[in-house]
């Protein structure tokens, strides 16, 4: 391989990206050295096993990926804004819609949700950490190294260009000869292992570490949604693992899984991908439903309407999510019977989802609603998501789908589900739980301003795509002629995309502003909320709860406030905490280099790093690490300081 094949060349935008990558990767270590922050970074963040800090790192990485995926999105909208545009060529456009999809789903939506899970779940169930804190750090570093590996593809070797669903035969070596799809297979594999470990970790955490008295049916709704989501993760991600492994084997080891000429089957890929891919959609949407449930009941000042039906409908959605996958390819000829069955199961999902929508509406009914930023996102979610849901039922009808399939109508549909569903939810959750982690609030005025920009611009961007799709514009089309008449609506969509960008810039500015100027003397429960995480201090001490609370009902914290009775009494005892460890980040780095060499089929260094990975596992099994205890005096000191600073009540 020559150097000009190794680096992507010939595009001014790529050169600019290379320069900025080099500048940033030089600037970070120089700044760290200049401000003498290496030690701080290593001991407080890179080696941490604290679920709150890991959650913050997930969210930071997700915001970074939101920027990356957002740049892709703006480029696509700019390219299609006017007919016969020459901003991007076809190949570049293919790469950009592929990375946009992968980055937004796997490296933005999922880590953002997992980040919120990490921050909130142990607090919400009254625990001091997750079940396996060290494994949690490993999960994060595997996700991070997968994300970084995927992201360097556009300057080194070339990005994948076969769509985020990477259908065969397009994704085969024959039709995608660059290393792009090797990156896809290996980077998602590494991140996927991390996600599977997260799934196991949170299942055990929720099943085994709840505060005394918190039975399953007394758990907050977000915890319920995360429990169900993690069941889906555990059973869906192994399918992706296999699919990606087969892709690697086919592309790099000459196997015949997906090549028709030697007895493979291209549709096998489509089936495997969507057997994982459709549950994946619910992995990113169910926690969002949980977040909305928390926020809506908090700001309607009412308990959540229909708690049991909420749980039942989420369980129903999780089961149905595994039996609808073929609706992604109705048009690929699998017969009337199969299409009918999948049509019915797909439409059936509307029922439990509808139940949830009505539950939120009934929770709002006669509530004393306060229109805070998180609440605005939650209120906007209900009607916008319903548009996404209704168009989903339209697409679910197999015969009608022959009209909609692979048009912009579909693109509009899934953005109408994923953005108000997942993106609004994670932003709402971010505003809602921010004070819990950092001890100060995000500015409400800026928050609301960015909400209005985002909510309105979202509709301006994506509603025109419904009409474009019905007019016949297909997805993934890098340009079109003026005679098609697609120009004006695409231009309108571009205007919306600019508005969305402004909205996100205000959001980021809000973080900056609040870090500098937001008042620090807030109460531990600034929103007057309902669940256990608000019963401890803001910011939360390392050990979460000095005394483990005892729970006797749903929303126990709320009733404890009303009745003036504390949830936890007794004397402090030494608290056992896990030790920090540098091993997870070393493992992440080893996986990164292993993956990088695998991508280029450089076997000897790949084997070397494979052995390094085994070495880290061996080190771990022989390591003696029993954690440490926080003494009673230290707990008293911390508690006093946290109370003193906060002028509580």
């Amino acid at each position, binding site marked *: 391989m020559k150097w000009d094949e190794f680096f992507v060349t010939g595009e001014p935008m790529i050169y600019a990206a290379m320069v900025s990558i080099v500048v940033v990767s030089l600037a970070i270590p120089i700044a760290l050295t200049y401000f003498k922050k290496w030690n701080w970074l290593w001991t407080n963040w890179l080696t941490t096993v604290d679920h709150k800090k890991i959650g913050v790192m997930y969210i930071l990485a997700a915001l970074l990926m939101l920027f990356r995926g957002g740049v892709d999105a703006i480029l696509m909208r700019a390219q299609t804004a006017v007919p016969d545009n020459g901003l991007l060529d076809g190949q570049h456009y293919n790469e950009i819609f592929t990375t946009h999809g992968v980055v937004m789903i796997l490296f933005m939506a999922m880590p953002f949700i997992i980040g919120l899970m990490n921050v909130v779940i142990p607090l919400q169930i009254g625990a001091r950490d997750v079940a396996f804190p060290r494994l949690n750090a490993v999960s994060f570093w595997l996700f991070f190294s997968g994300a970084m590996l995927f992201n360097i593809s556009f300057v080194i070797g070339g990005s994948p260009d076969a769509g985020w669903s990477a259908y065969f035969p397009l994704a085969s070596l024959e039709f995608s000869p660059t290393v792009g799809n090797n990156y896809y297979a290996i980077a998602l594999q590494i991140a996927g292992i991390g996600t599977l470990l997260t799934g196991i970790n949170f*299942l055990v955490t929720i099943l*085994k570490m709840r505060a005394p008295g918190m039975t399953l049916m007394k758990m907050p709704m977000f915890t319920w949604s995360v429990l169900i989501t993690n069941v889906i993760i555990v059973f869906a991600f192994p399918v992706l693992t*296999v699919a990606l492994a087969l892709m690697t084997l086919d592309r790099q080891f000459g196997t*015949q899984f997906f090549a028709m000429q030697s*007895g*493979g089957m291209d549709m096998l890929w489509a089936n495997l991908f969507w057997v994982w891919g459709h549950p994946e959609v619910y992995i990113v949407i169910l926690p969002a439903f949980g977040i909305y449930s928390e926020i809506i009941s908090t700001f309607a000042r009412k308990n959540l309407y229909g708690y049991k039906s909420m749980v039942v409908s989420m369980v129903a959605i999780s089961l149905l999510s595994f039996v609808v996958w073929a609706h992604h390819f109705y048009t690929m000829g699998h017969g009337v019977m199969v299409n009918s069955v999948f049509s019915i199961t797909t439409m059936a999902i509307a029922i439990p989802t509808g139940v949830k929508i009505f539950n939120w509406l009934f929770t709002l009914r006669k509530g004393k609603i306060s229109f805070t930023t998180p609440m605005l996102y939650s209120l906007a979610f209900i009607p916008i998501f319903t548009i996404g849901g209704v168009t989903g039922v339209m697409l679910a009808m197999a015969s009608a789908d022959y009209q909609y399939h692979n048009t912009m109508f579909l693109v509009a549909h899934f953005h109408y589900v994923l953005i108000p569903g997942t993106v609004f939810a994670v932003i709402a959750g971010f505003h809602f739980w921010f004070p819990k982690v950092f001890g100060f609030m995000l500015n409400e005025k800026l928050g609301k301003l960015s909400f209005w920009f985002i909510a309105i611009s979202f509709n301006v961007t994506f509603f025109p795509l419904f009409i474009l799709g019905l007019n016949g514009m297909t997805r993934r089309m890098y340009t079109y002629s003026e005679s098609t008449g697609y120009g004006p609506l695409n231009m309108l969509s571009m205007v919306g995309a600019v508005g969305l960008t402004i909205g996100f810039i205000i959001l980021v500015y809000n973080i900056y502003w609040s870090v500098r100027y937001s008042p620090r003397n807030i109460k531990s429960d600034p929103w007057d909320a309902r669940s256990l995480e608000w019963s401890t201090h803001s910011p939360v001490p390392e050990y979460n709860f000095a005394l483990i609370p005892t729970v006797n009902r749903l929303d126990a914290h709320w009733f404890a406030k009303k009745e003036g009775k504390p949830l936890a009494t007794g004397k402090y005892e030494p608290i056992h905490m896990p030790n920090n460890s540098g091993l997870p980040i070393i493992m992440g780095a080893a996986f990164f280099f292993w993956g990088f060499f695998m991508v280029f089929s450089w076997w000897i260094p790949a084997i070397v790093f494979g052995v390094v990975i085994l070495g880290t596992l061996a080190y771990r099994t022989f390591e003696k690490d*029993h954690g440490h205890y926080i003494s009673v005096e230290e707990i008293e000191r911390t508690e006093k300081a946290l109370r003193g600073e906060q002028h509580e009540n």
Partner: protein
Amino acid sequence: MKIDHSVPMEYSTDENKMKILGFWIFLGAEIALFSTLFAVYFTLQGNTKVGPTSADLFHLTPVMIETILLLSSSFTIGLGIHAMRLGLKKPMMTFFGITLALGAAFLGVEVYEFVTYVGEGATIQTSGFLSALFTLLGTHGLHVTFGLLWGGAILLQIKKRGFTPETTNKSFIFSLYWHFLDVVWIFIFSFVYLKGLM
């Protein structure tokens, strides 16, 4: 760390109980993984094209030897855990050692079989059927290989540290893993080999 003496040592702390539950959940994920591989195999089973079919390829003798080796190893690791619960260090280590030896012998026969297949012109690249076959068997074989390394590491720890809540917990979890590999092999034996021989 609170130790509960009313249950076997591998369950005696909260952390141990969580590790065992977590491993059961991991085995759930492994079931999903192998189910997918079986699904791929059943889909591509008939697509032999120019290459040999399963009836051309499979011979009962080596497969029967593999089955006997692996099933016996599942029995001996059960005896090992029994010895561990009785607090008998040396018998436990002996049974674990026999288990690993049987696993290694299984692996040897499997490698021999793979070499034979390749010698008959049946490689992983030949046809859809063979790609699926080698991948399914290979994934199981890799699990066994990893098990040998893991089991060896645990034996060393038992030798050095004796029975502690940590080492017994690790040994017990390893036994779950080993039994699971046996279960997968029973499916491979029945639905890949016996069905393929017919």
